[in-house]
């Protein structure tokens, strides 16, 4: 290719890639001026650029190492993964099925995923197993029904017999029942769909013979699939079109060669009496089994049980199951009638066809649903009538009564002004997924904070309730909110399922509940969707901008978003290791998807804290903060965090205070209810000497996040810089009650006691702080110095020890100059202090912005060099 042409392709590619899809075509047509091969070339690159190539997303060494790890982790059984068998490429083992190993595979001809079920080698010579295996394939492949797992083919390759079946993701009904009771409407829907499948199978002359929860599959998309026709029996094509009253003729004889006479093939507990007795079975046997399944779904227990096989069989033949009302009195009597009819011992008295049972189920479903609707309709007028009867004066005088009654109604607008999102529950059972589930909680909180008129409890206080099973009304009281969102997340492979519900907290009453299930690809859209649905329920007034912000979401590649979530998980630990790990993840997120705004927001966070805490020199940290925040803003202009970082760089590094405050407004606008936004803003205001506003802002943060030790401490610090020692002491103490090991709060307390000249308290607190920081030797030194030389000597000794430590440290690593300036000032060594202050000034240390208010500089404050420096920085 000519270099000029390649250059042209490159230019066009980069221009077009930034455009929305619909603009690209016309742009390219125009720019290429009739050169169609050029258009094609760029388009094909755009197409392939949009499909993430998993192999290139990680460094080669990691790819290879992981592959070796997978190899070496395999059990010694023959491995099929990676092999191509017939036209299937085997991808991974899914598990041990009833009849052999099941693998996920790719159909190379049709380019779709399938499940391959292999007859185990040990059974390959077992004629009975072989026939059963083939029968499953034949039986099910004769059926084409949305509620029956499709069998594509049966084949043999490399001396291995296998069947290719539809690849399903989800769980079996058995697993679902084990998780907890099902809603009545859900039970009815599942049973109705199984009836549909059975009707189709029976009409095709096939009896399943092993209907049980383990053979019913609930896919993630919500449909029901009947599995495993391994023991199904074909009745013969001539009988297929028989009418219902001819069902008796459909009777088949159990083939003695396949199932030893009298032996029961299916799982005993769900068998029909005739099947358990080893007699002839027909389509009505499946109906009995389905009755048993329905019974279990509603009661959570088996209709017939016993310690021994013989006991169970006797019960099935001779006994009546305990009435379902006994376990669940709220069930409609129609349901119990349906179950009774399906489970008649005499098959002539059962439903004769699955379609009949389906009809009754459908009628019941309609009644239940219309009842729900009627309730909704009736409830509202009833309350209005009551209110009118009581008389208007009560509602006027005691508004609470009105609120109470309205809050209970199902359809009237709800007065929800404050809300807490409790940590979503991780239902994957894998603690390694915590970061993902926490991330979803976080996203929901962040999305809700975009609503200006809604007070939303922030992350730390919500997380406070993680794993704590307190009653919702109690939680709501503690957090002072009137509604709570709770729910759970399951992530499995590429699917995510969120169940969310909104609860009227005071009355512990469900207002709304919904399940969402999506591809992992769509997780960002899903997050905004859930938030939007919640907002719709609470019916707050939204500005068009707020509305737009909630429904908009970022566009990160799923793996990049996932890495970002892992990064934030570590970020919130707020430890030095946590910060460093978070940076690693953010960088990986960036590498995985250079267009992922979140990755840059994360990096912006990291560099701002690294710069502010003096991990990096200001000149290395702040420009990177800005660069990353700018990239984030370019990619997505709706993320408050990016504007916080941008404003912080302007304010604390450029020392352009007015401009920084100006930039901050955008963050406040985007996330008016987040604790983090208010906390940061409080610091801006304090630097400007607007202490009352700063304290008010810190209190707003606290309202949104009442259980966060760090937010509490941040209010304390605003009091401290306002020189309101007593209030600061109180707040530091509360913070320490929440987290006794919170070092910054101990440090603050020491400083307050020092200001108040509470010498004993200051020394004791100092010792506690040093111990917690792992400096036991220093703690001991302070105590002995205090005894021998008194307060002044002990404190001075500490400053000198610290000075020595930092001087040693500076030989190895970077120590911010302001650390030395601070210590020299406390030691009253003015010249040294100013020398280091000048260095800090040259470096533009962000902490210099507190110079004016910081009591640590009391000793040098009256020096003319001090006011000159304050002026140079431009502090008001």
């Amino acid at each position, binding site marked *: 290719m000519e270099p000029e042409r390649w250059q042209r392709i490159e230019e066009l590619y980069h221009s077009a890639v930034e455009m929305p899809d619909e603009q690209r075509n016309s742009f390219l047509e125009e720019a290429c001026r009739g050169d169609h091969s050029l258009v094609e070339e760029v388009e094909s690159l755009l197409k392939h650029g949009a499909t993430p190539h998993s192999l*290139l997303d990680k460094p080669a*060494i990691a790819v290879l190492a992981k592959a070796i790890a997978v190899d070496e982790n395999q059990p010694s059984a023959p491995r099929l993964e990676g092999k191509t068998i017939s036209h299937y490429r085997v991808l991974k083992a899914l598990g041990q099925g009833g009849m052999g190993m099941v693998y996920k595979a790719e159909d190379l001809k049709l380019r779709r995923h399938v499940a391959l079920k292999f007859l185990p080698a040990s059974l390959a010579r077992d004629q009975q197993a072989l026939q059963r295996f083939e029968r499953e394939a034949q039986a099910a492949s004769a059926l084409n029904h949305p509620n029956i797992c499709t069998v594509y083919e049966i084949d043999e390759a490399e001396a291995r017999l296998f069947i290719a079946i539809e690849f399903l993701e989800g769980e079996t009904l058995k697993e679902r029942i084990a998780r907890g009771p099902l809603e009545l409407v859900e039970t009815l829907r599942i049973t109705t769909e199984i009836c549909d499948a059975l009707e189709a199978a029976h009409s095709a002359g096939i009896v399943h013979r092993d209907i049980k929860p383990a053979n019913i599959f609930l896919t993630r998309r919500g449909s029901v699939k009947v599995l495993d026709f391994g023991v199904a029996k074909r009745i013969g094509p001539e009988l297929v079109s028989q009418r219902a009253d001819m069902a008796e003729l459909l009777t088949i004889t159990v083939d003695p060669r396949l199932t030893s006479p009298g032996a029961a093939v299916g799982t005993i507990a769900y068998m029909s009496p005739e099947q358990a007795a080893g007699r002839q079975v027909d389509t009505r046997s499946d109906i009995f089994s389905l009755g048993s399944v329905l019974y279990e779904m509603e009661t959570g227990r088996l209709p017939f049980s016993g310690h021994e096989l013989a006991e169970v069989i006797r019960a099935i033949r001779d006994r009546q199951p305990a009435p379902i009302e006994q376990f669940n009195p709220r069930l409609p009597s129609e349901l119990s009638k349906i179950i009774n009819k399906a489970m008649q011992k005499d098959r002539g008295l059962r439903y004769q066809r699955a379609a009949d049972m389906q009809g009754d189920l459908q009628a019941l479903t309609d009644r239940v649903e219309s009842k729900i609707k009627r309730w909704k309709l009736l409830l509202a007028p009833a309350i209005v009538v009551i209110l009118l009867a009581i008389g208007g004066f009560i509602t006027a005088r005691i508004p609470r009564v009105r609120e109470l009654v309205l809050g209970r109604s199902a359809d009237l607008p709800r007065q929800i002004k404050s809300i807490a999102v409790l940590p979503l529950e991780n239902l994957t059972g894998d603690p390694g997924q915590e970061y993902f589930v926490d991330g979803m909680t976080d996203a929901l909180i962040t999305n809700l904070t975009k609503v200006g008129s809604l007070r939303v409890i922030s992350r730390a206080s919500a997380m406070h309730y993680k794993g704590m099973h307190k009653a919702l009304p109690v939680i709501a009281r503690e957090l002072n909110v009137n509604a709570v969102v709770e729910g759970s997340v399951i992530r499995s492979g590429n699917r995510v399922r969120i169940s969310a519900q909104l609860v009227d907290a005071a009355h512990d009453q469900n207002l709304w509940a919904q399940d969402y299930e999506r591809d992992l690809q769509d997780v960002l859209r899903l997050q905004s969707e859930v938030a939007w649905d919640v907002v719709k329920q609470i019916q707050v007034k939204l500005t068009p901008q707020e509305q737009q912000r909630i429904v908009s979401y970022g566009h990160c590649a799923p793996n990049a978003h996932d890495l970002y979530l892992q990064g934030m998980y570590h970020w919130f630990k707020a430890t030095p290791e946590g910060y460093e790990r978070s940076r690693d993840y953010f*960088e990986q997120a960036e590498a995985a998807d250079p267009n992922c705004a979140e990755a840059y927001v994360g990096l912006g966070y990291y560099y701002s804290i690294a710069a502010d805490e003096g991990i990096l020199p200001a000149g290395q940290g702040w420009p990177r903060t800005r660069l990353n925040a700018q990239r984030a803003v370019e990619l997505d202009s709706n993320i408050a965090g990016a504007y916080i970082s941008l404003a912080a760089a302007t304010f604390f590094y450029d020392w352009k205070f007015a401009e920084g405050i100006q930039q901050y407004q955008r963050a406040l606008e985007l996330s008016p209810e987040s604790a983090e936004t208010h906390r940061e803003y409080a610091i801006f205001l304090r630097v400007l000497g607007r202490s009352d506003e700063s304290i008010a802002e810190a209190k707003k943060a606290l309202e949104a996040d009442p259980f966060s030790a760090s937010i509490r401490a941040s209010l304390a610090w605003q009091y401290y810089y306002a020189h309101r020692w007593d209030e600061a002491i109180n707040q530091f103490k509360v913070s320490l009650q929440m987290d006794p090991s919170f070092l910054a709060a101990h440090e603050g307390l020491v400083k307050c006691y020092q200001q108040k000249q509470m010498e004993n308290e200051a020394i004791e607190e100092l010792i506690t702080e040093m111990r917690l920081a792992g400096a036991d030797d220093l703690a001991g030194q302070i105590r002995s110095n205090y005894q021998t030389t008194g307060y002044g000597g002990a404190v001075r000794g500490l400053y000198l020890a610290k000075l020595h430590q930092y001087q040693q440290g500076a030989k190895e690593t970077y120590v911010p100059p302001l650390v030395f300036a601070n210590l020299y000032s406390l030691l009253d060594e003015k010249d040294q202090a100013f020398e280091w202050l000048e260095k800090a000034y040259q470096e533009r240390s962000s902490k210099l912005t507190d110079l004016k208010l910081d009591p640590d500089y009391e000793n040098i404050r009256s020096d003319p060099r001090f006011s000159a420096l304050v002026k140079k920085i431009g502090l008001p």
Partner: protein
Amino acid sequence: MDGAGDQATSVSRHDVTRLLHAWAAGDEAALQQLMPLVYDELHRLARRYMAGEQPGQTLQTTALVHEVYLRLVDVKNVNWQDRAHFYALCARLMRRILIDFARSRTYQKRGGGAAHVDLDEAATVSAVVGDELLAVDHALEQLAALDSRKGQVVELRFFGGLTIEETALALRVSPETVMRDWRLAKAWLTRELSQEGPHGT
């Protein structure tokens, strides 16, 4: 890190740096000596991956790759002017060794014959990945012929495991340029690889 351990690794690190320079100067024998060291690291990484399967542990690829470098090479003693060159050298070395390794794995797979059955079973997954790596390597040569800087970006990022900023440093261009190059190169390679099919050789 305790002093004794540090001592031990810095000896081998010194060796690696020396070998690396020797290899860069054209001494192919040096590569033969470097290989086992890198293989050890590869297996160490693999073990970490296996350990990482346990709940609660997650793996950070970037960190791991950097750790490999730190263990192999005495980064501290490479001065800043040389660092760009050093990065490029490491990436080239990693590419050579990883591709050789991938080739040996796929060779095992294709060895055929009854005697190879066990090997066949043991090498399945990495053989597939090996095939894919070889395909990337091949496509990368073509990309480099078309646009040498993009070829270098891929070599540094993919084979060298460097971050955007490190790559920018090594190539003396801005991180934005690296990002753009990487993006286009990925699109181009993805297209090449899909045309050849996942099993292309």
